């Protein structure tokens, strides 16, 4: 762990925090444009957060300390997970401490706490949200892990920096396992971020809601933290896909400052591209019934498993 890697790590942690609401704003604006609406301003999520932070918090009578502690812990674990994904440069200080499996598990911790908070107040909406969230997670998490297995088997490492550096090297051609893992990862990303075929981030009062029902009782600064965590999670998944499947342009450890600037620009371009793809996909597809979602996620799980098994079968024993 060199000072340079610590500097990169801290810069990265601050960059994801600063850019996450902007990404949400961009994806909303793009979606509105595709629907021929004018849409909100790009900076609207920042204003929303600021307004929520300044507002008074209303806590239900039946809420316990867990309800008030959960937003901080959820935000913290999502932030740490997002800081672990190499965005504009590899060679982060913390990647020597935590790999891709840890990132998946940290998101799992955040979801666990949020689901508990949904049950804490003791209302039917919170329970509904928690129950469905855990249902989706019970398929999305294994699917994600299977995609992770595929990548790690290919690269011979579970560390994201090494995977990214391996994939950018010329050693990998087009690979069927990689394609299957990409599809699985995209499905998981849609489900985990409560995007359209699974859940609708724009609705608030609809019986099909999942995430919004779970956080229904939150207000003020607590809600701001949860919204920020959701924005970070979207950024995390898009950065992850960019880092693994579009690994070009990312600065490697020890490169000159111009490479870091280039890496930053490349990262922003990749994010914009993926946000556009997301908006396009969301406007083109309708929302699913709740009980169709497990089938959708089951496809992701099967693709991930297939990708892993193909690698297991095709590898020659050493």
């Amino acid at each position, binding site marked *: 762990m060199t000072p340079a890697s610590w500097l990169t790590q801290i810069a990265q942690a601050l960059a994801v925090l600063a850019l996450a609401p902007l990404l949400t704003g961009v994806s909303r604006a793009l979606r509105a444009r595709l629907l021929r609406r004018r849409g909100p301003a790009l900076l609207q999520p920042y204003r929303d957060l600021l307004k929520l*932070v300044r507002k*008074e*918090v*209303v*806590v*239900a009578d*039946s*809420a*316990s300390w*867990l309800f008030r502690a959960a937003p*901080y*812990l959820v935000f*913290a*674990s999502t*932030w740490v997970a997002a800081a672990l994904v190499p965005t504009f440069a590899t060679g982060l200080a913390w990647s*020597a*401490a935590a*790999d891709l499996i*840890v990132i998946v*598990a*940290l998101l*799992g*911790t955040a979801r*666990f706490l949020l689901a*508990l908070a*949904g*049950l*804490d*107040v*003791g*209302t*039917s*909406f919170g*329970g509904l949200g*928690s*129950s*469905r969230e*855990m*249902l989706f997670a*019970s*398929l*999305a*998490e*294994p699917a994600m892990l299977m995609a992770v*297995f595929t990548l790690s*088997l290919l690269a011979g*490492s*579970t*560390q994201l920096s090494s995977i990214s550096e391996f994939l950018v090297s010329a050693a990998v051609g087009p690979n069927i396992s990689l394609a299957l893992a990409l599809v699985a990862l995209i499905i998981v990303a849609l489900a985990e971020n409560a995007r359209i075929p699974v859940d609708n981030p724009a609705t608030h009062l609809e019986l099909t809601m999942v995430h919004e029902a779970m956080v*229904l*009782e939150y207000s*003020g*600064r607590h809600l701001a*933290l949860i919204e920020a965590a959701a924005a970070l999670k979207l950024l995390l998944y898009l950065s992850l896909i960019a880092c693994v499947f579009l690994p070009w342009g990312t600065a490697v450890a020890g490169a000159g400052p111009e490479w870091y600037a280039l890496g930053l620009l490349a990262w922003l371009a990749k994010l914009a591209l993926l946000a556009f793809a997301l908006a396009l996909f969301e406007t083109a597809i309708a929302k699913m019934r709740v*009980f169709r979602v497990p089938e959708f996620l089951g496809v992701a799980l099967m693709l991930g*498993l297939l990708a*892993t098994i193909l690698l*297991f*079968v095709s590898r020659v*024993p050493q």
Partner: protein
Amino acid sequence: MFHVFNHSLFKSLLFMGSGAVLNATGARDMEHLGGLIHRMPVTALAFLAGCIAISALPPFNGFVSEWLTFQAILVSPQLAEWIPRLLVPAVGATLACSAALAAACFVKAFGISFLGRPRSSAAATARETDRWSLAAMLALALLCLLAGILPGFVIDALAPVTQMTVGAHLAPQASQPWLRIVPIDPARSVYNGLLVFTMIAVAAATTALTVRRVASHALRRAPAWDCGFPEPSPATQYTAGSFAQPILRVFGSVVFRAREHLAMPRPGERGAARLGVELHDTLWEVFYQPLAAAVDALAERLNRLQFLTIRNYLTLVFSALVLLLVVVAAT
């Protein structure tokens, strides 16, 4: 081996916690609990630690052993035999699924019994258990956390045991810098529980401080909003059954052949509507019940041997003797 050790920690913790709840409320059914976090805060804290640990979530110990298992799976393409190579990914997928389902299960267990509002008067008037039980539970919870943050020491301590059982053990971990664990090769995979825990703690503390400095401090207690339903009764909360229902419907309809029966009274009648859930344990019905039936039938046959004449017994003894002699001669 590490996983077995972890189980001994968090399983004991969870059993002690449920014992404390049983003692305090006299209720074994989760549907009669709720809101215990207000009445039994220390038990709730320890039980929560156990739930997070058993769901294999960082920074607790369950995650570390799951992580090590995954690392073992990821080196297994190097195995020479075909059958284990094909079985191992399936095992990995099953492990991942069961970890996620365990998380759902323990959200339900903790959420329904400790959170929400009390569903019975016993739960509403529950008292915290005695000091010694609390101390034991807190000690176990602390051990779960410590084994998750400093797994290297536990792995080293268990090395003689794995050496005896499977004839191999991981390289000593205590000499690794920064208290990290490295199962095979630092370039391949590293986990540092202490650093992950510190990162989460620092991030949470920074957030809390910033929010404290920037945000409004106002806090108001009010009845739950629940999208505008005023003063709902505790019976309108999600119950354990309703929490598990979607999962049951998705996974259980094949494995457990779960069927829901809804008996609605006809319009005008005043009887209550009933929703029943029927479950079958496939393993029990397909494997154990035929086995038990076969043993029963065999016993029925053999039963007749008890009512033979002395001549028949002598014949049996003689033929058994001849048979045994033949066997001895043949070998």
